């Protein structure tokens, strides 16, 4: 019984930590409808600043807290809202997610740049003193964490529900114009909400640092566990969020206390937040369709079949020539870029055409790769099997979340990726104790240049198929569903079947990419397919242009170049992350990305070259799709 009490106390402390982290998410989402993935990175940045002032510079605790929580954090939140988030209130989920991922990366890069990696001792508040509850010691740090969680919960509840400012904040999300007409200041309210959210992130970061340590990544990603709690309250209910946080903390604590210790159950324990999230989503009521609202996206022109075919041949020839021109060690990098481009093609179908965001696409790539590796990989049938197995998994992922849309659907893909990380890829039954699987190349192509050319051929074939789909009836249906589910529903179309098909099709492409990747590298590891590899994938897919084949190719090369650039110019380090994050923030609003800019530039050039055919043409860089 005393053990139970001890595990309960520890679970409550953990839950309090989750609650503080999740509360900031709720505040920003409630007031801006932006799921701020960068929330944890703000807490991380502020925790480093607090360490700098308090521990490194020797400022007193109260002054450090005042400067960090009272000045720096709200200022950062205010600036973020004013210059980045303000225009995202009505933006598609893909845009707001990409931009917040961009911010996350930028903040991590900033912290690494200012505070290079090294050991930093972070003392706990009140040292080792505390009180004994049963068999467990509850330290001053724990008590503060619980106390702050309670105070934050109460204060936020009162603010959002009992004060004019809070009500105005929430009203600003629903209709800014109406708030203005009633004398409110919606922009000020949004800024205030982001300032508060940023302060809460700072509080969470400072309180959790003595437990988590000053670590760029873990502090940043703690919010990923916390969001499961917030989902219970559908990102808007503070009481339910806190309940979710406490239940999560308790479940994790009891799991350590009472589940047998073996690898399989260890995976289950680690996946508790994700399982919790899935359970909550399964019982969520179906989201009502948007009515009276069409959010079309201007897309790049879709080329005709013949033109696309010609460009496809040109592309393959160019890749083959490039392969011959490049030194040997560059050829696999070229292949990697093409594999990434192929993965981004899967996002063109899912996100560009279908309007669904996937935060776990690399997990699907992993399924394809593992399937091919297990089958050997020498036959094209192995690659095809990899694609088909992945397609089935993709369809299965889509089934339980058919009722969800937008953000929840995106989060469910992230949850899927986490489950793959914790329960599948970590399993020694899959990758073996050596954690590596070997794979042969299809047709036994040991020559890198030949294999890379083969990948280019596969890329072109799938791209042509994708464009054919886009030009046809299915493509028009997809675009219609993306732009106005309500209108399509009114016409009697079964959107659920279409959605499952899109997920399956996208997964098929990702699986094929995985199979080719396994052959390219010769061996694969579980860490090749971690959840967080998928985030930069999405980031650069949007930067390249997630609505076009050209954008996929650009994104693939950018993704390949990232490690190459940091590797060949180490001084870029954190600066490169900052640049990428900033680029995503700057370009994220236009899902046509750099591809669109390239088309516009090409048209501009053509329009200035006198020719009979171009005379009198209007610029078609964007057409309503």
């Amino acid at each position: 019984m005393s053990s139970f009490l001890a595990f309960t106390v520890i679970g409550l402390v953990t839950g309090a930590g989750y609650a503080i982290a999740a509360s900031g998410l709720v505040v920003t989402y409630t007031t801006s409808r932006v799921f701020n993935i960068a929330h944890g990175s703000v807490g991380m940045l502020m925790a480093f600043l607090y360490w700098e002032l308090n521990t490194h510079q020797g400022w007193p605790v109260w002054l450090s807290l005042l400067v960090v929580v009272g000045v720096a954090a709200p200022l950062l939140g205010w600036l973020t809202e004013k210059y980045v988030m303000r225009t995202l209130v009505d933006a598609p989920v893909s845009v707001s997610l990409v931009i917040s991922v961009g911010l996350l990366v930028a903040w991590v890069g900033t912290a690494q740049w200012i505070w290079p990696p090294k050991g930093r001792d972070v003392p706990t508040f009140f040292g080792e003193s505390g009180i004994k509850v049963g068999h467990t010691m509850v330290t001053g740090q724990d008590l503060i964490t619980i106390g702050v969680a309670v105070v934050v919960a109460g204060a936020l509840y009162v603010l959002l529900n009992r004060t004019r400012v809070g009500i105005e904040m929430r009203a600003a999300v629903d209709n800014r114009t109406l708030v203005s007409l009633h004398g409110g200041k919606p922009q000020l309210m949004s800024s205030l909400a982001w300032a508060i959210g940023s302060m809460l992130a700072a509080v969470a970061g400072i309180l959790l640092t003595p437990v988590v340590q000053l670590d760029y990544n873990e502090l940043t990603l703690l919010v990923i566990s916390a969001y499961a709690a917030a989902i219970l309250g559908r990102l808007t209910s503070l009481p339910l969020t806190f309940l979710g946080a406490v239940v999560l903390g308790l479940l994790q604590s009891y799991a350590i206390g009472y589940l047998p210790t073996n690898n399989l159950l260890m995976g289950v324990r680690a996946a508790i937040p994700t399982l919790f999230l899935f359970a909550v989503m399964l019982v969520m009521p179906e989201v009502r369709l948007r009515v009276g609202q069409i959010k079309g996206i201007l897309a790049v022109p879709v080329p005709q079949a013949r033109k696309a075919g010609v460009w496809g041949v040109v592309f393959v020839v160019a890749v083959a020539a490039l392969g011959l021109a490049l030194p040997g060690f560059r050829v696999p990098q070229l292949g990697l870029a093409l594999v990434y481009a192929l993965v981004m093609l899967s996002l063109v179908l899912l996100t560009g055409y279908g309007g669904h965001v996937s935060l776990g696409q690399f997990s699907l790539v992993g399924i394809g790769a593992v399937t091919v590796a297990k089958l050997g990989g020498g036959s094209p049938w192995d690659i095809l099997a990899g694609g088909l197995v992945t397609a089935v998994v993709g369809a299965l992922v889509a089934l339980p979340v058919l009722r969800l849309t937008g953000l929840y659907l995106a989060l469910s893909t992230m949850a899927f990726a986490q489950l793959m990380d914790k329960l599948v890829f970590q399993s020694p039954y899959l990758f073996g104790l050596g954690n590596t699987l070997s794979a042969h190349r299809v047709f036994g192509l040991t020559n890198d240049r030949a294999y890379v050319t083969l990948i280019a051929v596969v890329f072109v074939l799938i791209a042509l198929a994708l464009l054919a789909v886009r030009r046809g009836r299915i493509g028009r249906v997809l675009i219609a569903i993306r732009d106005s589910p309500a209108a399509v529903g009114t016409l009697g179309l079964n959107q659920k079947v279409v959605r499952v098909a899109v997920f399956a099709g996208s997964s098929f492409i990702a699986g094929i990419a995985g199979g080719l990747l396994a052959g390219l590298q010769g061996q694969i590891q579980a860490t090749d397919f971690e959840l967080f590899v998928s985030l930069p994938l999405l980031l650069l897919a949007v930067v390249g242009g997630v609505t076009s084949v050209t954008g996929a190719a650009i994104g693939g090369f950018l993704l390949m170049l990232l490690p190459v650039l940091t590797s060949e110019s180490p001084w870029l380090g954190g600066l490169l992350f900052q640049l990428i994050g900033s680029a995503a923030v700057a370009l994220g609003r236009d899902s046509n990305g750099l591809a669109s800019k390239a088309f516009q530039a090409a048209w501009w050039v053509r329009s200035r070259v006198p020719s009979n055919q171009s005379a009198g043409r209007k610029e078609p860089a964007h057409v309503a799709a």
Partner: protein
Amino acid sequence: MRFRRPATLVAAAVLTLTTALAGCGSMLTPEQRAAVSGNGGYGASGGNGGGAAGPDAAGGPGQAAGPGAAGGPAGAGPGGGSAAAGPGSPGGAKGPGIGGGGCKPGAASDKGVTPNSIAIGNASDISGVVPSLFQGAQDATKAFAAYANANGGICGRTLDVHAYDTGETNSGDKAAAQKGCGETFAMVGSMSAWDNGGASDTSGCGEPDVRGMSQTKDRANAPTSFGAHSYNPGYYSTAGADYFGHKYPDGVKKAALLYINQGAVQSEVDAETKVDQSRGWNFIYTQPIDVSDVNYSPYVLQMQNKGVQVVIFIGVAQHGVRMAKAMQQQGYKPQAFIVDQAIYGDEYVSSGGSAVDGTYSEIQSLPLEELNSTPEGQLYVQWLQRVKPGAKPTMDGLVAWSAARLFATELVKLGPNPTRQGLLAALAGVHDWNGAGLTAPMDVAGRKTPPCSMFVQVRGPRWTRDGPASGYACGSLAGV
């Protein structure tokens, strides 16, 4: 016991988005930095490594004052002049010298060799999830090259270091291996978390690869790769189990093994458990911990409830600190808290504060704190400062320096016209290398994990040797 596992490194960092960014595919495990801690040193036996034949073998004025005095690479003879007399040794960087005395530069005898220089490559993790993971290895290789060049080079040829960044990725290691094949005579002092990536490429082109330490089985067993620290995931020593078994005979009957479950750590845990149990240990609590888990208090509570007396923890510094602080917070003080060698280093001490005091670790090299006690250690420290002022010695740097010394020692034996084949043949005969006193005896050619270790403990603000009083304690090797 514990700690040979560079593979484990992989862990935590993976989480990072940064990683993801850093290269989508750049998944690595942070531990690697520390993982290196296992280096070899040479034992009380004082043997010296392949150095036995030292540079002097080729003749030359050899330098009397080498680590040889301590059993180091003795005999290092100078070909191009002793360190003391060398042109670049102001400040008295004394050491074994380079060797090859009397040896005149020959022709362009093989890839990367010219009458004036020898191109060597170093492929280490510089960028990636954990920034500068093995920067120390590359710096040390450059430092050794500078030292060698200042002392007349090798047979009159200067060493020209081509630095490659493997970016903590498989593909990065592969690309670096391919570059190295085409540009350099040999790879020297490399350290890469995912060094299996380029293992087949390096051996495929027949390039000698004198590494600091291999991180994966594929690399450790690659035909042309030789680790100056001969760690091999297939072999485990009983030295640690015996040392702590004698120190805490009752405690080891109630032992716990907790580890961050990432990468290939599971196989290491299985092996370690097997070896320790064969020496009388009894594990009453074995607990994998997910890399994303941040609250270790429940695990501490479990150990308290079960009456655990000796705790082994496998992870990286930040995890070790987290566990130490959770134990301190709960007022739990086992007889011994023993951490993976990957945790050994400044970061653990500086970020752990009082919570980490008393922690044990097992290493197979001279502790960084004792570097100045040997001439070779002094050389490493001094030349590191010359090529990179302000840089601190690291364990990966230490083994990389040892690798560079091994390379130079064997190369000198080949005379004026070295070839890759010749160097490979020479390396195949090195079975007792100790890095001129920096590491425990290493069976480089046998590719076997060193059976000898030293045990260190955090006392106050630094790691301090706990035992044996001098040299290393040796056990037997168990193949797994």
